[in-house]
């Protein structure tokens, strides 16, 4: 923040810096967004143009077929709901158990912290493809195959390590006497937590929430293996099925990808505002 105000001053050198800065930002934005624009183009052109050699930069033969296929597809609509449920519940569970555990590790005293942290991390050492079959057997035995539970549990297990490690890192950065300082100022313990700890840790909490949600939303392997029919399958499983035995409908897959990406970005945009506002709550004063 300090450097921003400094750069606002208008000497010639500073203006050059600003210009370079904006160029730098523009490049990053373009690189980030270009493939999505290209995929969008794929979704609005005819199949003939999709496979044109050489490829056309600007769309020429427009067609609404891909979009009407996707938007009218009830399986896809259901899949969007399924994805939302699975991702939402995973994120909530992960944040809840994750932040409790992270708080205990970061701010409380007990032995075996290192062991616990490593144990939690250990699941990130194993490639998902290797354990898919035994997981399937386990879940079949318990009877949760073909339910949201199987995927939610697996996604939670794989998202917890990052959640916990990240929140530990954040909780640990908070000054040791923070709770004490707040109480000296007259706050109750609960108030101390709400008004002091939580806002300061908010960036970490919201960031993990976003990352967990997107991870669960994009997860394919477990959803594909554990879920059998359309009533529970999320978009990642449904999109590749815009295909028949003989052809693949790339245009519809492209349209579906856009439908699936844009709301995520908007969702994140909303959440990101909360990160900034959490900070300006003015928690740390002297």
């Amino acid at each position: 923040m300090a450097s921003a105000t400094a750069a606002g001053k208008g000497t010639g050198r500073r203006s050059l810096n600003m210009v370079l800065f904006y160029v730098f930002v523009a490049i990053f934005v373009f690189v980030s967004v270009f493939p999505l624009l290209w995929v969008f183009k794929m979704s609005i052109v005819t199949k003939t143009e999709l496979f044109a050699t050489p490829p056309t930069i600007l769309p020429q033969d427009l067609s609404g077929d891909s979009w009407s296929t996707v938007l009218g597809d009830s399986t896809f609509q259901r899949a969007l709901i399924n994805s939302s449920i699975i991702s939402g519940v995973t994120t909530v569970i992960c944040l809840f158990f994750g932040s409790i555990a992270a708080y205990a590790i970061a701010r409380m005293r007990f032995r075996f912290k290192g062991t616990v942290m490593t144990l939690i991390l250990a699941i990130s050492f194993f490639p998902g493809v290797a354990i898919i079959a035994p997981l399937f057997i386990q879940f079949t035995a318990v009877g949760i195959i073909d339910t949201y539970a199987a995927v939610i549990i697996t996604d939670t297990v794989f998202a917890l390590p990052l959640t916990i490690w990240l929140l530990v890192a954040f909780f640990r950065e908070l000054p040791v006497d923070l709770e004490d300082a707040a109480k000296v100022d007259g706050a109750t313990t609960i108030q101390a937590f709400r008004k002091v700890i939580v806002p300061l840790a908010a960036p970490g909490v919201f960031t993990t929430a976003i990352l967990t949600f997107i991870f669960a939303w994009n997860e394919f392997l477990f959803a594909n293996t554990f879920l059998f029919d359309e009533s529970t399958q999320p978009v990642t499983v449904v999109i590749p099925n815009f295909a028949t035995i003989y052809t693949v409908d790339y245009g519809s897959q492209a349209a579906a990808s856009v439908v699936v990406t844009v709301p995520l970005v908007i969702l994140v945009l909303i959440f990101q505002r909360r990160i900034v506002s959490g900070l300006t709550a003015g928690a740390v004063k002297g």
Partner: protein
Amino acid sequence: MIERREQKLGMPTGRGYSRRDFLKVGGAGLAGAALLGTAGCGGGGAGSGKLIFSMSSPVPTFDALLNKFSKQNKGEIEATLREMPANSSTHYDKLTTEFQAGGGDIDVIGGDVIWAIQFAAQGYIQDLSDDFPESEQEKFLPGPISAMIYEDAIYGIPWFTDAGLIYYRKDLLEKAGFSGPPETWDELKEMALKTAKDTGTKNGFVFQGMNYEGGVCNGCEFIWTHGGEVLSEVTGGEVVIDSSEAVAGLETYASMVADGVAPEAVANYDETTSEPVFGAGDAVFLRDWPGYYGLLGIPTKDGGYPNLKPEQVGIAPIPVAEPGMQSYSALGGWNQFVNAATDSQEEAVTFAKFMIATEQEKSLALDGGLRPTRKALYEDPDLQEASPVIELAKEIIFSNAKSRPVNEYYGDISLELAEQFNNVLTGDTSPQEAAETLQQSLSDIMEQAD
């Protein structure tokens, strides 16, 4: 300092968690309740009068057939469709996961022709010899039947079939002065090069040369049409891929790219990327499956190629090395298998037999555009009229369809073949080297098969 912190934190930690976290608890609880309520009821079906049939990429006809079956067996059996992934490997993966876990609850499986022996060898599917005796088998095409046989028993019933063939641009060939399709590979090369040059077509010949199952089909066709074999018997025997005939086949395969008949890109083509090239009019010849014919001249909305009319395109058998040699096409297609772990053995067989009954196969051919496996249906005038490829490809399907060297270790065999065939196309390996490498690796695999 430290002690004071401990004291302060002692009591409240349990209850001092912020309100937001209580909301989270509530949220998690509600979510838990929600997911228990909305969880799809899995695992029903088998043994309770309900039959589960699994198949990928269902055409609308499938639903109609299932309803018909359920009506016919009203009160006793109800058939439901479980849709499987469209991608063949993902589909196979899903089935094997369920089999490994003890069988799963699918009763009847719609499966690819190359899965039959692998599933049979691992005990995943039922021996159907009693329900599908030879007298019945005779009514079906010989190619698919042979692919269902393992250790003298038959494990699947052919449902619809496929065989590789050559599509060619009749109109372009005419312009270039050729009167008919090529019989030999040399003729194809000559025609492709001249026609492409004379008519200004970008590519002479396109096919599926990528490192995947389709690449195995393409490569095998070249080997077989030169008189070579991969294995000495269809699903067993010795590895004979280093014979001079097989090497000659691979040499012709490599020469397609080396001599400029086919673009370098074929080494990355599967069906979905080679078909549009021909469909856009950018190739004189295309090697593909019969299903492609149905996409000619129909709108892109339905997955077709409106600018290429059926009248412009002809179908021919896969070319051979020397005139008079037998042409071979890779056999494809889908079949009915019965899960070995099913509770509803009888009902499952009833269903499978229903699906391959003449009436049903005819519906599938008429409405779904699929190729029947019953020989008699190829003489059916309704079908001939509705689906020209039935007539055009009849000879190929009847006489030329040949099974890939499937045995219980086909997974490994396919990986090796696909890779070496692709290396030959990209020029990374010479045909002779590829054949020798395959001779070694396939022999190693076959040794384990005993």
